[in-house]
């Protein structure tokens, strides 16, 4: 799910919405954007597959939309601000949609948030290579 060979590819559980992702996800995100209009939301709900077929999206993207698989949608170029238009049209809160991407249930996720959220400790770098990578990070920030 991470972006490869980027200064942010070693951040665990995180996809940065950069140009590569924006290219892959262009039509997926524009589909989500269309759900801002009530008439489009109705058409989508009437026949999700038929509505999706009007968009030049990949089959994998369409299937992930049908399955409301947000982890997959992010991996396929979806941006969270676009994807919440899909979850909102389902009547889901942002927190509920977001929690499905974690290993927690919506209830446990909200409980974690009430307890101060997820700690950054151990969540900054993949493989716990904190020290080494921290240095290279500083360099890249001065680019």
């Amino acid at each position: 799910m991470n972006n490869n060979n980027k200064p942010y590819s070693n951040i665990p559980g995180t996809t940065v919405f950069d140009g590569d992702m924006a290219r892959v996800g262009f039509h997926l995100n524009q589909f989500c954007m269309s759900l801002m209009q009530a008439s489009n939301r109705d058409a989508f709900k009437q026949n999700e597959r038929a509505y999706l077929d009007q968009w030049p999206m990949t089959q994998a993207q369409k299937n992930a939309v049908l399955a409301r698989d947000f982890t997959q949608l992010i991996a396929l170029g979806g941006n969270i601000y676009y994807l919440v238009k899909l979850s909102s049209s389902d009547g889901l809160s942002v927190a509920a949609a977001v929690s499905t991407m974690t290993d927690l249930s919506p209830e446990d996720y909200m409980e974690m948030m009430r307890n101060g959220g997820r700690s950054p400790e151990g969540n900054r770098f993949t493989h716990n290579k904190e020290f080494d990578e921290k240095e290279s990070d500083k360099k890249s920030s001065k680019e």
Partner: protein
Amino acid sequence: MAKIIAGLGTSHIPLLGHIIDKGESSAEKWAPIFDGFQFTKRWIKEQKPDVVILVYNDHATAFDMKIIPTFAIGCGEEYRPADEGYGARPVPIVKGAPKLAWHITESLIKQGFDMTIVNEMDVDHGLTVPLSMVFGEVEEWPCQVIPLAVNTVVYPAPTGERCLALGKAIRAAVEQFPEDLNVQVWGTGGMSHQLLGERAGLINREWDLAFMDDLQSHYEALAKISQVEYIRESGTEGSEMVMWLIMRGALNHDVREIHRHYHVPVSNTALGHLIYENVNEKGE
């Protein structure tokens, strides 16, 4: 002459708008959130700004993937609250300040900022939630607003240094405007939050508080933080904090922090809020 007297930073969390719009903002369960804005509500009534330059990011509302401006400045006569998928917020139309906005835009472009001029757009929770938190529930917003939308959705956002420089350029532009106007600059967004992936729900209280500490006097150092470092430390959406640097740049080097509020959580997010007044403006 127009003058920037004060500025504030605040998160712009959509849930706060929902709570207000349902009439539940005085419910006891939300007191830890809303009590921190009581001071602000009294303060703004004394300050009576004529114009607020409101720095926020559009969340795929006015702009979609077709066009993504890095810095978009609103020069329009007015802006409607956007329908973000569950109906528009029942808050007043936002009145623009087109004459001042065009003046600032012309000055910024001549100063070398590559502004995108916007004459018509709807404004989302990024802009209307701060207005509600500061002014409360009102029939009309008591000031004009110049929306300044910053791209933080698509990587890369403008750098901290660029945001700080933009703030300074805004100050120079405002001070050349011939009308007597009390102008404020608000920086919104943040604090730490991440809305996607296995790491969603990240909150870095230490980082957030250090950011608010350093913003007063060590803002030049904050401006060197890369977007990758924001993301790593404060979550993908934590990088919205860069917008507070535009507000900071628009103020004097010497400011007094007259209020601060920090609370976790609001929905997925840490809420941060502070108010600065310029020092050396009132003969101090």
